[in-house]
């Protein structure tokens, strides 16, 4: 170019500034689009839950002119939703506890002790997490009927614990591997057995891993549908997803009530996810990244 050097420098600088502003603008527009795609459907559900019944049949208005909690009231008073929530909470909590009790020693052994046939066992465990639940739900139903566990929490806890175990073991093995082996050796010198070392030395260190595994198990169990649909029959053990899927309507589907129920079960999860985002990401990806 035959422009003076200063002008060239100036225009280069200006180009950089424009490029920077352009990039920022692009990022902002992208974020707005992504957030809209991810959140607007959820927001619409909340808006629906707050609309009085006559408003549901007309759009516009998009927003409720007279917001009401009627649908929430109906869900809890005219339907056994409190009992359903109790079922879901109890099943998810007991499954989480069972999963940690069974999964922690296994993960510890895989990471720090020598388990005979370890490689094969780990592949087998991973295979269980990949297989289609539909392939076993029929036979499992027969087993559960045989054990007289139909329509009880225990049927769901048994099935959910088994199928969330692979993930728990996977996540926890990663966390145990990160703890130096020297600690186990030191504990041994002090006369600890492996179990004592796990309890007194390792558990306090892997608490973040336990929290991540517990969170994931809880959420997966809370959301599980196929087993809950198949093994429950009444309000005695029916969980939230099944209730929402089977919501009965006399004439037309009770959309306001469905939206209210959906809002009730989604809001706690929203709060949980926003608070624990970092932990979830760290826990889930630990295994994937390290291989």
């Amino acid at each position, binding site marked *: 170019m035959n422009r003076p050097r200063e002008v060239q420098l100036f225009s280069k600088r200006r180009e950089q500034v424009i490029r920077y502003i352009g990039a920022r603008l692009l990022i902002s527009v992208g974020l707005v689009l992504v957030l809209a795609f991810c959140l607007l459907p959820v927001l619409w559900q909340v808006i629906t839950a707050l609309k009085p019944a006559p408003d549901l049949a007309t759009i516009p208005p998009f927003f409720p002119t007279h917001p009401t909690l009627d649908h929430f009231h109906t869900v809890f008073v005219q339907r056994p939703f409190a009992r359903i929530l109790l079922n879901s909470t109890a099943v998810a909590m007991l499954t989480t506890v069972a999963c940690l009790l069974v999964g922690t020693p296994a993960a510890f052994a895989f990471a*720090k002790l*020598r388990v005979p046939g370890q490689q094969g066992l780990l592949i087998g465990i991973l295979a269980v997490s990949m297989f289609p639940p539909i392939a*076993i739900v*029929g036979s499992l139903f027969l087993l559960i009927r045989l054990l007289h566990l139909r329509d009880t929490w225990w049927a769901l806890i048994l099935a959910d614990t088994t199928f969330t175990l692979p993930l728990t073991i996977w996540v926890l093995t990663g966390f145990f591997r990160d703890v130096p082996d020297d600690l186990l050796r030191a504990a041994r010198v002090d006369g600890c057995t492996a179990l004592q070392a796990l309890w007194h030395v390792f558990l306090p260190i892997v608490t973040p891993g336990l929290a991540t595994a517990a969170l994931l198990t809880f959420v997966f169990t809370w959301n599980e549908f196929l087993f809950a649909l198949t093994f429950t029959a009444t309000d005695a053990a029916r969980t939230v997803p099944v209730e929402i899927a089977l919501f009965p309507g006399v004439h037309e589907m009770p959309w306001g009530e469905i939206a209210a129920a959906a809002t009730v079960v989604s809001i706690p999860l929203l709060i949980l*996810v926003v608070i624990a*985002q970092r932990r979830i990401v760290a826990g889930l990806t630990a295994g*994937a990244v390290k291989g």
Partner: protein
Amino acid sequence: MRQRQSNDHPVLFVLPALSLMLLVAVYPLVTTFWLSLRDEFPIFHISRFVGLSHYVTLWNDPRFWQSLANTAYFTTVSVFAEVTLGLGVALLLHQTFPARGLIRGLVLMPWFIPTVVAARLWEWIYHPHFGVLNALLLYSGLITTELNWLGHPTLTLHAAIVADVWKTMPFAVLLILAGLQTVPDDLYRATRVDGATAVQTFWHITLPWIIPAVSITVVFRTLDALRVFDVVYVLTGGGPANTTETLSIYTYRLSFQTLEFGYGAALAVVTFMIILVVSLFLQFLLRLVSAER
């Protein structure tokens, strides 16, 4: 360095987990194989060995082939959309911007709400008369009459795919974002010094580096999509006219609605085999990809 002492009994540590899996996962799977060779109608007290006849019936069952085709189409389109969108969103969330943690958490939201809730939520959006989608499209003049999103033979499967993409794209974002975080900053700095454009950096540095993360995402999502049940079952029930019936939905209907346990088990076995073969094939590809690096 692993160590072993004679009094450790490492087997005892893994025994509870393994027995649970044997009882609740492996034993029922074996039972399914056995059931698939029998006629079982508990209510009529029918229980007899029929050999491979269910498999022959299945081969000649057009509904099986349709459910297989539906599942294959659903899997291909949804996994492709999830992974490409997920890659884009992950690249975006990898940039620096204010409130990054909060925004990442919000993007994960759809993956954490129950699938059934997601299906209901989309069912309401797709509602032909009261749905917000038709309202918006009519309002903006893009359509002139209401579209029956969940009652149209070709629209419905695509409507289900959109709902599934919405629900599981965040999972793809999560895995790919983790891959992006392993790219060394030095590489980026070096390319900047060399004067590479953003597009060049993406093609020559970022993409090759995150190929393993993307491949793992494809594997996970494919295996998940092949066994899809909840989202489609609640959204469409397999309709209209079985055009959205997947392998899992057909299996479920056979076993629990028409109570043909034997025939249902045969379809369950076939579904299991298909997923097994696809999973072995994908793992083979995955090994090729990682061997190349």
